[in-house]
């Protein structure tokens, strides 16, 4: 089955064509950069306007790279839940139009579910159940993925997502947006023990996270140097910050592995591209009887191949009828779980 997927959850415009869930024929990701550089982050209205311009070229490019005609597409998949509402609306409108024109099924996919399945693109044999740590700028979850579409929530962030804190620090250090890659590169040159930054909730025995305190601490650290008119030791700050984040994420993975007695961990989302996190969890695995799987870097950040992969595994029976009220939602429950997963406080 050849699936064309569209992913427009944030500022990226992504289209992919994937055969049988793992054979990626093309994966196009286009990012609009001018607004980000001008405003230091993502402006939802501007992101949606750019996606309107970029989506049709992305579809054409994906078809050309895959050497596939539209008539050869068997099904469509689109991220319709979790992300910026205006951006998701653009992707869903395009997917619905294609579904109408081609008379093929359209499968709505949850953005976080897409990230969960990103680990299966290159490793379709990952056994179920497994623990999945999915960390990005907009979400930060630990799940037990029991089977296709069935999840158990182990923990989530109570405030900020780790990726968001990376972006905030990068912006404070003048490194631009997005900040994950810049901080990672800078951290490689610094001393991770240079500054003692907090590791929030690291020893509380739960799988929940909290990064707002770390964000405040590292921001104050930078402010102290600015106030004292001293040069900012950006490399040491980045290294110390990254060590704190990775310590917390790795510790929580260990708690989750012990809690559900799992031998397989997948790590997905934009922060899964972090070199220190990949290295730490890969080394920890043999000592604690689990194997860690990471998607390739290009499947860590937002992409449409993961949406196609999820659609393939979840099955065509999840397709939405075109006359059903297939809508876009900025925050919706994942899979069979009835709670929301915004990175901000949603408890209660």
């Amino acid at each position: 089955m050849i699936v064309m997927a569209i992913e427009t959850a944030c500022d990226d415009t992504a289209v992919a064509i994937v055969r049988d869930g793992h054979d990626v024929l093309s994966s196009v990701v286009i990012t609009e950069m001018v607004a980000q550089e001008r405003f230091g982050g993502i402006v939802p209205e501007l992101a949606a306007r750019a996606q309107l311009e970029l989506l049709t070229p992305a579809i054409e490019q994906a078809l050309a790279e895959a050497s596939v005609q539209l008539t050869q597409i068997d099904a469509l998949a689109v991220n319709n839940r979790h992300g910026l509402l205006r951006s998701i609306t653009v992707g869903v409108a395009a997917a619905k139009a294609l579904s109408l024109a081609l008379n093929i099924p359209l499968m709505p996919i949850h953005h976080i579910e897409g990230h969960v399945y990103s680990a299966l693109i290159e490793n379709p044999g990952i056994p179920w159940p497994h623990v999945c740590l999915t960390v990005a700028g907009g979400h930060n979850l630990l799940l037990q993925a029991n089977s296709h579409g069935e999840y158990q929530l182990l923990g989530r962030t109570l405030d900020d997502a780790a990726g968001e804190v990376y972006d905030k620090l990068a912006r404070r250090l003048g490194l631009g947006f997005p900040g994950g890659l810049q901080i990672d590169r800078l951290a490689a040159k610094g001393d991770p023990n240079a500054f003692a930054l907090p590791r929030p909730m690291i020893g509380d025995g739960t799988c929940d996270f909290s990064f707002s305190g770390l964000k405040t601490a590292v921001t104050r650290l930078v402010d102290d140097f600015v106030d004292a008119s001293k040069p900012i030791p950006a490399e040491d700050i980045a290294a110390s910050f990254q060590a704190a984040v990775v310590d917390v994420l790795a510790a929580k993975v260990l708690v989750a592995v012990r809690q559900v007695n799992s031998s397989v961990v997948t790590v997905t989302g934009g922060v899964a591209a972090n070199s220190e996190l990949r290295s730490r969890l890969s080394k920890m695995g043999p000592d604690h009887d689990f194997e860690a799987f990471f998607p390739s870097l290009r499947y860590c950040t937002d992409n449409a191949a993961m949406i196609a992969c999820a659609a393939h595994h979840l099955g065509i029976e999840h397709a939405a009828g075109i006359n059903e009220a297939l809508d876009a939602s900025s925050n919706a429950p994942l899979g069979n779980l009835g709670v929301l997963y915004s990175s901000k406080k949603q408890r209660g």
Partner: protein
Amino acid sequence: MLTLSLDLAGEIGSATISSDVGPLATVELHLQKKPLRHCARLIDGVTKLADVPVKRIERLCTITGPGSWTGLRVAAVTVNTLSIALQVPVIAVNLFEVFQAYMTPGESNALGVVQVSHNQVCVATLGSTAPYRSQELPEVSVLRICSLASLLEGRKAILAVNSSTFDTLRGQLVEAALVDTRHLPRPSIIAADIAAKKWQAGPSHWATPVRPLYIGSPPTVPEHTLEG
């Protein structure tokens, strides 16, 4: 040529299929501020009513503004994507071009008013000349609704505004001749006719996309830098 025309600019959305001899079918829905939810439903409904499969559509057109930004965006994405899938041209029609067509011959100095947000309207002076040429369109002003009453007093105006806004204005203005577009032929019907005339004046390539007019928006980024 079979034309599919789409309008999601306002409170009520509509889709029309027209042939060279006139409209074959029109479907309209109250969008309830959910244009995405109803867009495919409109297209599906009108193609079934006209008994014209989507594959047979030869030309697309949509209202590109002014109006609700989300509605305009959904309509533009939909017709642009259909254009690629069906390899048919897509033609942009301004809502004030539709208003021009509502005018009777020789009539002038009327105002067209389109509500674009809960407190903003776009206003343009309408004339009966060259109704199908967008370059002849008058300048559009963006005003707050509270300043609209003094402008409309004693004049004829065609209004595409929320029902509550229309009722408020009608209560305030005794001398004005207010025409509610909800009582006129749906904009998608008129737009299909305008698109046919524009096509005759200058056919466009099927791969040329349409863009919404974000009237009332602050200046945005002039060019896109792409990475990927």
